[in-house]
């Protein structure tokens, strides 16, 4: 275990020296997960909002499904995306397997239900309060959704941060569809798994520290958003 201290020292040296290999991996992680969150927001926010303001037959079933999808195991998503993108799969001709795009697709599938389900809850509560007021102003369905999305923006950003937290920390899906290829699809989590098994603790620890820091930043952002929301009586 005397290795451990040395590994830590080395890890910080890599971090403080902005080691190119390390930075490449961090950069790809951020690019993949941020893009996935962006796509998830584009799909999940309107979906959650529409579910929050409408009543239709089978809605309860859709909500149960959505809440179930929130807890999808990343490896299962990875497997399904793999099957879809592999040579024999329906999207095989696009040759996306083992590319960052495949990883973005997998993470978007993981994160979209989270964003949609959290948005649905927020929007539904706010809709109960706003509905009559907006109807009396002559605001239609589309305007209602837009107004709710805007007025719920702090809660919705929090939902997106939750989604980002899940994406950046996830290893199963990106490993299966990305393949952990050096310089191409290696991200923080898959690199940690590999480097640890190779005994290259310094790099693994350095990446682990970055992941932890990101978690701290995310949580600080969530708290900041809550405080801002409270100041505007968004509660």
């Amino acid at each position: 275990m005397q290795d451990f201290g040395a590994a830590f020292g080395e890890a910080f040296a890599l971090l403080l020296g902005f080691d190119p290999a390390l930075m490449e991996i961090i950069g790809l992680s951020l690019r993949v997960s941020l893009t996935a969150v962006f796509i998830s927001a584009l799909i999940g926010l309107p979906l959650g909002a529409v579910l929050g303001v409408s009543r239709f037959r089978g809605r309860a079933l859709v909500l149960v499904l959505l809440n179930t999808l929130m807890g999808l195991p990343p490896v299962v998503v990875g497997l399904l995306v793999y099957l879809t993108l592999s040579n024999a799969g329906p999207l095989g001709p696009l040759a996306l397997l083992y590319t960052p795009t495949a990883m973005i697709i997998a993470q978007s599938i993981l994160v979209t239900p989270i964003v949609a389900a959290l948005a649905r809850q927020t929007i539904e509560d706010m809709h109960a309060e706003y509905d009559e007021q907006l109807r009396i102003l002559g605001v239609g369905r589309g305007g209602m959704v837009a107004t709710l999305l805007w007025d719920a923006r702090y809660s919705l950003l929090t939902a997106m941060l939750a989604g980002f937290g899940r994406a950046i920390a996830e290893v199963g899906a990106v490993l299966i569809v990305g393949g952990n290829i050096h310089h191409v699809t290696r991200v923080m989590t898959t690199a940690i798994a590999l480097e640890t098994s190779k005994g290259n603790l310094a790099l693994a620890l350095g990446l682990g520290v970055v992941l932890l820091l990101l978690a701290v930043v995310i949580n600080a952002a969530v708290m900041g958003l809550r405080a801002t929301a409270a100041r505007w009586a968004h509660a």
Partner: protein
Amino acid sequence: MPFDAPTPDRKDGQVLPIIGRGLVLERAGRRIIDNVDLAIESGGISIIMGPNGAGKSVLLRLLTGLLNPDAGSVSWAGRRPDRTRAPSVGLVFQKPVLLRRSALANIRYVLRGAGRAERRRRAEQALARAGLGHLARSPARMLSGGEQQRLALARALAPDPDVLLLDEPCANLDPAAAGAIEALIRDARDRGTRIVLVTHDVAQARRLADDVTFLHDGRIVEQTPAASFFDKPSSSAGRAYLDGRLLID
């Protein structure tokens, strides 16, 4: 960009008179509104009075098309209520619902048509008229109860509606604030907005009313010019209400 209300051309349709015919609303086997006929023609201030639970708030929701009656019908200028004409019918709820935005943004939200600068100018003007100019940037939901009620009224008046229905706009207000609201109401009336006001404040009703509708148990038991209601109410329910005797049966 914050989303603002859409821009229907509200001059494409008149809404007066607003007429309710044979209105019935039932909930849980009980008639909350029981065969009510009511006409709101142009000009003046009508007051709706009645004890708690009489159905006053529900009646306003029926007249504005927020609720559909189980029987009977509501018409605005001869046609069913519709969304494009909704901006001509203002309603301030008993519990005002303010958007999670600044006081100014709450008013800007309902102003349509005009360009950005023009909307801003009109919103500032409406705030100032309600004595809230100094609170323009404050989060609306952080205002005091009385300030929120004034803001809700200012917002309802900003689009210059043809009719404004007010559900106890002065509940919880100090005398000066109530006076300020009364002044805003009179001012709107003088500019041609038809006012329908629900209030429990007899003195206020006396000051403002042209006519009084007295509602009890979901039924209109009296509908008369103001003078005759306050001096010699014809219904025993109205008399009891004015005497401050509780109407529990």
